[in-house]
């Protein structure tokens, strides 16, 4: 049952350049399903609309949210300290439908956090988790690796990907150190702000992956020949569009989590619609509410 709560922040953590994690003490945590979200309110009285944020982890008495700072509201949330309060509404939206067997769990950028919740709710042996990042400033790879096998597609890793990359291999690359001196190899530079980690890898958390590739998630899936009985995906619209097309082409059932600007967040205002293939029962037009009929939709039902 959705409700409004004033909740306490339990902890905060910076995961990447502008990506933050907060844990909230909330009864919503125990009721939330993977795929659902919560609305967060700022204390700033000039910013009146709720900010919808996907649930990254939910358990009895606790909600974890991982979000990117994209404006004044999310910036305010990133500044909350343990013990401070925040007003939220949730759980909102529908969840990912349960399916048995192997799943490709695909998260692009800030679409990754809700996929952790999903992975945790399934048998880890059945989870092939594919993450996509713009650069080496990654997050959540360690936790994801505890819930399935993890692959990472990095658009700009700072060097050309070799044929086979695995956890055991050393990555060759050049890191510009403080004195500006360059090391061996190609002369390609690893992008800031990524630190070269202990394993000598070119992106944070590479040691938790079963493989990675330069490019996008679909490049990686095809390159590694990854396949499953069902696909779950969340991320930028171009990524979802490509995955929808891939799933239709290969006859694989796929569930996509969408997002759109919201106002009420509970289905009353009709701001956050997506286009549907067929006329929707509630609206009687080819629009569905992402906050109620979604955010998760079977890929064949919606037009991206």
């Amino acid at each position: 049952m959705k409700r409004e709560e004033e909740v306490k922040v339990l902890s905060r953590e910076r995961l990447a350049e502008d990506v933050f994690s907060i844990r909230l003490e909330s009864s919503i945590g125990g009721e939330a399903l993977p795929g659902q979200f919560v609305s967060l309110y700022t204390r700033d009285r000039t910013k009146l609309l709720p900010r919808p944020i996907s649930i990254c982890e939910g358990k009895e008495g606790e909600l974890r949210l991982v979000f990117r700072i994209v404006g004044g509201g999310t910036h305010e949330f990133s500044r909350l300290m343990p013990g401070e309060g925040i007003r939220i509404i949730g759980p909102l939206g529908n969840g990912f439908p349960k399916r048995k067997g192997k799943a490709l769990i695909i998260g692009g950028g800030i679409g990754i956090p809700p996929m952790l919740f999903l992975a945790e709710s399934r048998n880890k042996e059945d989870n092939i988790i594919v993450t996509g990042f713009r650069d080496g400033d990654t997050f959540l790879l360690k936790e994801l690796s505890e819930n399935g096998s993890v692959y990472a597609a990095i658009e700009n890793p700072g060097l050309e990907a070799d044929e086979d990359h695995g956890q055991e291999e050393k990555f060759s690359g050049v890191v510009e150190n403080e004195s500006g001196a360059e090391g061996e190899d190609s002369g390609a530079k690893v992008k800031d702000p990524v630190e070269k980690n202990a394993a000598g890898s070119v992106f944070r958390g590479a040691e938790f992956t079963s493989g990675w590739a330069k490019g996008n998630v679909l490049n990686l899936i095809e390159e590694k020949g990854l396949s499953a009985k069902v696909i779950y995906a969340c991320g930028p619209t171009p990524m979802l569009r490509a995955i929808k097309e891939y799933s239709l082409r290969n006859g694989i059932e796929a569930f996509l989590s969408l997002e759109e600007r919201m106002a009420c967040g509970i289905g009353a205002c009709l701001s956050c619609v997506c286009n549907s293939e067929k006329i929707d029962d509630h609206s009687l037009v080819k629009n569905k509410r992402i906050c109620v009929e979604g955010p998760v939709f079977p890929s064949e039902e919606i037009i991206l």
Partner: protein
Amino acid sequence: MSEKGCITEDNLRVNIAGVELKNPVMTASGTFGSGMEYSEFTDLNSLGAIVTKGVALTPWEGNKTPRTAEVTSGMLNAIGLQNPGIDLFIKRDLEFLKAYDTVVIVNVCGKTVDEYVEVVKRLADTRADMLEINVSCPNVKEGAIAFGQNKDALFNITEKVKRAAKQPVIMKLSPNVTNIAEMARVCEAAGADAISLINTFTAMKIDIYKRKFALANRTGGLSGPAIKPIAVRMVYECAHAVKIPVIGMGGIASGEDAIEFMMAGARAVAVGMMNFNEPFITKQILRSMLQYIQDYNVRDINELVGCVN
């Protein structure tokens, strides 16, 4: 002084065009659906009235997304009057509202006068207690604000709707005009039972990082606390231009705001955008209005209507 203890919710009762409302607080069209979603939070029975989302003769798709954008102390919307059409609305939404003890005001929209008239006729023997005629939505290419910005068109549609309507007719005015009091007079002359104002201001937001309009429709209607001072001024002007009751709205966020509108001349008020900020806002508003009349020994809320002039 001993009379103070007798002031209760009953002292909030108001009457608009012959319809009794238990209190002056309504929810604004477009911000509350038909109450189904908000009923999980706030008690619909506690409301003076629910004004439902604009309904047309047939289902309308509305505008492309993004349909909303936040601005300082407010928001822009360009929903574009998406609605399921009068048939499903009567069968589902009005059926749902039968279970609640509140006044139901159905907001009507259309592209042509004939469409408005047909919807109004279909609503004749339904749960609808009053009708609010949308001649002010700025987000559609035909109908709505096209009527509200033109005196002759406004007179004509008011007259035709009034002739066809069984329930009392409220004309919802647009602030996107040079002289809103003049529009109020036009509606009164054409036979409207009441007026409600203001609808949203046509406005725009540009995202300077994406270098795009924030709304797919480019412009949208501005609502929220940002518009309240202009809304209060317009309510004042209209209340002094006509004798028919004025329902005031525009950025109401508290009981104090509601009373301010009443003192400017509104007999009842509507709360819109702030429902998105706090689903229990109407409950909070009623609570603080009751406290005001208790604290200042106002035996009848109607004493406050237009008391500042």
